[in-house]
């Protein structure tokens, strides 16, 4: 099972309501994934500041704030439930090792535009907890998880982000993730869980160094073995891919203002003007991409 949802805005019309749109989509996919939920939302990045999305786990916000202040030249630390968005002018190569020293926290993503929030619990609780309805942005991706191959934890929740402004959600299961993880580790990739999707995310990040998102996913068709519908996001790109057998569902609705994708149409039934949208099922083995 698992439910996946995503919206890519083609015009500015719905930027302010993006969070609200995604929130309803996630909640309606609760039946496909009641164990945990998460979302990545891309905001415009005029000020060129890096944002680090961090799950505090058991650490208190005050303690984290005090400790990080000693180590990093800060612009801002914003608390959102048990997550923190750390904003800094410092580049990732300086910040990432500092964050690694905090053994109890988890870095869930970083970049100039991406913010990621994910947690165990029902999708309706998760979106409420992080106030998703109040978010604005340019594109967003979400996931509701029915855990199968690894535990119900924050680390096991989607989206996975393994590179700057990159993220991936996945409905399905990969069968060659252990081999692929070993190969990617040799090339310097790092993984924080045993999850198969994290490996696909790492594969995409590794490939994006040389290719664009569309080329990367096309190559993934031969390198990733298993069942999948993927939604991948980058700084300005958004793409969808189903494996060639197409066991996992997906439906796309496209209007002049947005592209929306979800596992089932009912997740999109509330979207503005959706009944006049072009609605189609992405064909197996074909990469659909927008932006970039």
């Amino acid at each position, binding site marked *: 099972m698992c439910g996946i949802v995503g919206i890519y805005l083609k015009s500015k019309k719905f930027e302010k309501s993006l969070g609200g749109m995604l929130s309803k989509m996630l909640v309606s996919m609760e039946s496909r994934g009641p164990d945990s939920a998460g979302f990545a939302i891309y905001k415009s990045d005029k000020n060129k500041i890096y944002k680090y999305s961090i799950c505090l786990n058991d650490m208190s916000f005050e303690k984290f704030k005090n400790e990080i202040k000693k180590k990093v030249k800060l612009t801002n630390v914003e608390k959102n439930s048990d997550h923190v968005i750390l904003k800094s002018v410092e580049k990732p190569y300086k910040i990432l090792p500092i964050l690694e020293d905090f053994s109890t926290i988890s870095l869930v993503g970083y970049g100039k535009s991406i913010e990621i929030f994910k947690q165990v619990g029902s999708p309706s609780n998760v979106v409420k907890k992080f106030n998703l309805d109040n978010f604005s942005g340019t594109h967003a991706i979400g996931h509701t998880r029915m855990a199968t191959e690894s535990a119900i934890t924050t680390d096991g929740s989607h989206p996975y982000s393994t590179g700057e402004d990159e993220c991936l959600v996945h409905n399905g299961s990969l069968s060659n993730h252990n081999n692929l993880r070993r190969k990617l580790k040799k090339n310097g990739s790092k993984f924080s869980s045993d999850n198969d999707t994290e490996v696909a995310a790492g594969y995409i990040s590794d490939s994006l160094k040389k290719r664009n998102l569309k080329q990367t996913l096309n190559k993934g068709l031969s390198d990733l073995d298993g069942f999948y519908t993927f939604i991948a996001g980058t700084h300005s790109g958004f793409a969808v891919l189903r494996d060639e057998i*197409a066991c996992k569902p997906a439906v796309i609705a496209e209007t002049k203002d947005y592209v929306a994708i979800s596992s089932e*149409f009912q997740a999109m039934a509330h979207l503005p003007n959706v*009944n006049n949208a072009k609605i189609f*099922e992405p064909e*197996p083995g074909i990469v659909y991409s927008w932006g970039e």
Partner: protein
Amino acid sequence: MILDLKKLKLRSVNEKLQNIDHKKNKREFVISNPEGNHAVCAGLTENIDVTIKGHVGYYCAGMNQNANIIVDGNVGTGVAENMMSGKVHVKGNASQSAGATAHGGTLIIDGDASSRCGISMKGIDIIVKGSVGHMSAFMAQSGNLVVCGDAGEALGDSLYETDIYVKGKVKSLGADCEEKKMSKKHKTKLKELLKKAGSNIKPEQFKRYGSARKLYNFNIDNVSNY
């Protein structure tokens, strides 16, 4: 009678349509705001007309008997699955496994149907005005599948006695499926099926595919095809 799924529960709408007193009740119904719900109009048994205004989710009109159901929108996985009789007309596109395992009745899809259309069909007539995806008519046992557009990979894999008619290109044929001669009998049947779907395309424009009947019984020479 209009049944609004924004105001009524899906279960109560289905219960109402499943328990029609054919002496008293009206026979025409409109379902509004289906909003992608699953199992809309599943298990109807009476000869009634239902029009669904909008897109629906999985298993719409499943197990249908006698009812005439029109979907003015797209349908999700398994529309008219295991239909016994009656008619289901989808004005938009259909997702995978349309008409799966259905024993009878007619399924008309104005748009495209995706993969596994007519999988294990057992007597239904399916007419798709657009194209069908991969593995369509997989293990299909009887009935007719008419495709006015193209067919995807492995059409009619492990086919029994369903007749498949395709007007456009077939990407590839599945194991034990082959092109067959179109006799007068088949042209007459196809013309009748196209007429049911309101299409006046000439039967001569289609090719017929059927079972080569080589996989019916185990034969060691065919082991790689099983």
